[in-house]
């Protein structure tokens, strides 16, 4: 029986680990000076990536004009924020984000449990399929859902009216429901990806222990499984909530026609549709959001403080799955339903549409491969593709490494300053993307000219790392929180230095999480537009800018073609990733 005695935290406080950083090596790690240098280095890196652009924005919020223009310091921006209208908008935003985060989380937990802990048929395939929606560019799904769910001629409504003979539409995507629904398509797979490995890595012994104590299956799930997943779940939920607050596409496409205002559309308007752009207001309201979101993060810190969540111990376990009997077909159907609704419906539209001259006009004489030809023969597409691949590979890898180090320091050491690092790593996510992009522009452009960042690929790379760090830190934090200390200490005692331990044990054990984070970041980079468009230069075009240009020129069908290419890439990468995980578990 491997019923763990690890559950209550050890009475003895955790030791400080003698650790150094990277090439500074062992001697460095063994001394407090080395520790100081290591932490100072981390702080410097994070400060440049997140605090520096934010400080530019802070200046912008306190100054009547953007950096570089004569003006005066005042609080007008903040005065404009604290109005009844802003409050209503803010409440609206929070409401929408909660309305999508809570059901998304429940759905994601259900899917993660089904796919990681039960014997549902074809779990491997389903796991790839249910995550697909996340990787489709939002603008495409927005268009697809507009076609499916508009109240006048939406396909779903037409089918509904044909079946029932009713004349009233069943659904209208141009509504609160539509905004939430569109967001959920992204947040469910996002949350699923963040938590599924926590479910997979869970020692069933801990659950068995609860069942032995007489707890029902449901009670076990509630009191043990969920409780042990708290760091992973709350971390993921907060990320998702923050994303909801900062979501832009869904409210823009589905909210504004219905008069729904949220913070991001408000910011967008204040920059893009005022003359001159109201940067002071845009940055001020962003800082108000930042403070509010930091409070949420602090609440999570307090909640998780002093608790142990070790589920992966050195004692080994056999990841058993629950036998569901005939119910497994029900869980299978549930996953398929999710897949059909969130992927087949919208992507089917896009896929079919990409073979016709125009979306939604499916006539034989309009059947064409022109869009594919146009994309594949476009030099601009390939240039953007190359740059994006390079930035994606390098950016996602570096971001995950940085996130791994930050997470390590913040959850597994007692170093002074680790909370600061953790907090700094959160910052970029607290800032709406449109505004943060401006922060990077200001920050990089105003660097001394001798530092060749502005106007080069470096600017994009650094911005992507900054934007991705919060996610990578969260992903690695929950992964580390599950690993018992013994595994690491054992490595140190047996002759491995900090770096070797990090690489061979910590990264290797947290590898599934590392891979998931990597995939999320990679495709995040592929999609990032707000900062990219402000930082790219001729020659360093990226795919998202190419997509934006195609869209702006009415080539929605070509955008779909690229969307399809991205989907194929997701399928390939996810398939490889899951196969690797499987060979490890399958060998047991």
């Amino acid at each position, binding site marked *: 029986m491997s019923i763990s005695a690890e559950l209550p935290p050890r009475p003895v406080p955790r030791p400080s680990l003698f650790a150094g950083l990277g090439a500074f090596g062992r001697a460095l790690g063994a001394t407090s000076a080395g520790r100081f240098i290591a932490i100072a280095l981390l702080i410097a890196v994070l400060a440049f990536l997140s605090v520096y652009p934010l400080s530019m924005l802070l200046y912008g919020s306190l100054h009547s004009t*953007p950096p570089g223009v004569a003006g005066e310091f005042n609080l007008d921006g903040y005065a404009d924020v604290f109005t009844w209208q802003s409050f209503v908008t803010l409440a609206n935003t929070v409401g929408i984000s909660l309305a999508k985060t809570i059901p998304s989380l429940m759905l994601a937990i259900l899917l993660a449990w089904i796919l990681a802990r039960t014997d549902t048929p074809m779990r491997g395939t389903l796991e790839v399929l249910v995550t697909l929606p996340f990787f489709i560019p939002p603008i495409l799904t927005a268009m697809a859902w507009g076609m499916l769910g508009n109240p006048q001629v939406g396909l779903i409504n037409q089918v509904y009216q044909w079946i029932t003979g009713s004349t009233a539409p069943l659904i209208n995507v141009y509504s609160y429901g539509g905004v939430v629904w569109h967001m959920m398509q992204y947040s469910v797979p996002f949350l699923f990806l963040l938590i599924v490995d926590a479910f997979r890595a869970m020692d069933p012994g801990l659950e068995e222990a609860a069942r032995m104590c007489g707890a029902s299956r449901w009670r076990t799930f509630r009191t043990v499984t969920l409780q042990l997943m708290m760091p992973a779940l709350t971390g993921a939920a907060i990320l998702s909530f923050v994303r909801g607050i900062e979501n832009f596409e869904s409210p823009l496409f589905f909210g504004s026609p219905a008069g729904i205002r949220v913070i991001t559309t408000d910011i967008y308007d204040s920059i893009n549709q005022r003359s001159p752009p109201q940067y002071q207001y845009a940055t001020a309201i962003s800082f108000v959001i930042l403070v509010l979101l930091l409070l949420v993060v602090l609440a999570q810190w307090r909640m998780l403080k002093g608790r142990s969540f070790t589920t992966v111990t050195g004692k080994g376990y056999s990841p058993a799955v629950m036998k569901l009997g005939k119910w497994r077909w029900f869980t299978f159907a549930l996953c398929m339903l999710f897949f059909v609704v969130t992927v087949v419906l919208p992507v089917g539209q896009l896929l079919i549409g990409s073979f016709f001259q125009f979306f939604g006009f499916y006539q034989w004489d309009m059947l064409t491969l022109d869009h594919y030809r146009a994309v594949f023969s476009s030099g601009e597409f390939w240039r953007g593709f190359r740059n994006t691949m390079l930035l994606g590979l390098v950016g996602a890898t570096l971001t995950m490494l940085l996130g791994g180090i930050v997470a390590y320091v913040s959850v597994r050491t007692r170093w002074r300053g680790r909370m600061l690092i953790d907090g700094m790593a959160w910052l970029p996510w607290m800032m709406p993307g449109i505004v943060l992009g401006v922060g990077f522009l200001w920050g990089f452009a105003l660097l001394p000219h001798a530092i060749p960042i502005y106007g080069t690929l470096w600017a994009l790379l650094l911005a992507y790392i900054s934007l991705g760090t919060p996610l990578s830190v969260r992903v690695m934090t929950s992964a580390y929180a599950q690993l018992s200390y013994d595994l690491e200490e054992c490595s140190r005692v047996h002759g491995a230095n900090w770096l070797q331990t990090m690489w061979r044990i910590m990264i290797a054990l947290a590898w599934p999480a590392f891979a998931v984070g990597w995939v999320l970041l990679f495709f995040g980079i592929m999609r990032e537009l707000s900062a990219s*468009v402000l930082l790219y230069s001729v020659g360093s075009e990226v795919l998202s800018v190419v997509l934006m240009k195609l869209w702006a020129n009415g080539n929605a069908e070509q955008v779909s073609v690229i969307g399809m290419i991205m989907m194929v890439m997701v399928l390939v990468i996810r398939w490889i990733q899951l196969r690797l995980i499987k060979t490890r578990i399958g060998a047991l």
Partner: protein
Amino acid sequence: MLKSLGRIAALLGLIAAAAPASAQDASWQQVVDAAKKEGKVVVYNMALGAPYFTAVLKSFEAKYGISVESLDLRASELSERIRTEQAAGRYLGDLEIVTTTMIEEQLANGDYVQKLPQIPNAANLRPPFRATEHSIPAYVQSMGILINTRMVKDEDVPTSWADLNNPKWTGKILSDDMRPLGSGNTMFALLQHTMGAEFNEKLAAQKPVFSRDMRNDARRVARGEYPIYIPQVFAFASDLKGLPVKVVIPKEGAPFAEMDFALLKNAPHPNAARLFIQHFLEADSQLLYANAWMSPVVNGVAERANADAQPFAKAKLIGPAKLAERPAMMSLAKKLYP
């Protein structure tokens, strides 16, 4: 009779277009030589890779062997990049092609642009277009009404902006949002003048549905979500052949947004920039625009456009909008559409 008149006009246009070329003196040749020596020109623009824009760039590169670096940005991003770069002492761009009002704004807020050198083709601009000290027209985007031909019967097709206020269309009009900056507000402001204040009030009572995605809106109309969309930029409808939609040019005329060239401060390639402007205003370049259903800004081009493009290239224009009136118009729109 009309035909031959047209032919004469075209001929005149050709002569007019050719005039600066024949007048090309040695000093212009010096500009060309200097431009070639500079080797490239960097253009900040909002065309976002539109095919007609790219075609003009290609023809320039082919003709002079000078490469064009085109940085495609949306309006606010473009102005902010220029502002930030100049504040940081980075003078990377030579030219910008932006709305007239944006240049006015730049002039009001700082010295982001410099005075234009003499451009020979400026002499060929057709009214109402004219060059100023700092700007010279590049192209215009004129706008009309888009209808779904399956949903709007022939007798119901609006021929005047006023027809939009027919009760038949209540709740059936899809419109670009008129409150923020953009074509919706440009239309709103210009029609306020041409049609009178009452027009906009009545239109508001029609409860148009606002959208922000111009390129998707025409397709939504084509798919039958709404029978009518305003304002339809002509150029954006030129690639919708085969769809059940039609662009109507109301009899009062088409409101337009004008895109102007301005020379950025400390432009690193001033001669190439100057040559590029000259090239852009050549009749052949403007013809590429006219064929994409846009009004050319120089004489003698509209007449040469393809048959289906002719009505749009020749459309009567309403405008331009003035920067000074913008705040008032934006707040009026906000009042009418709370």
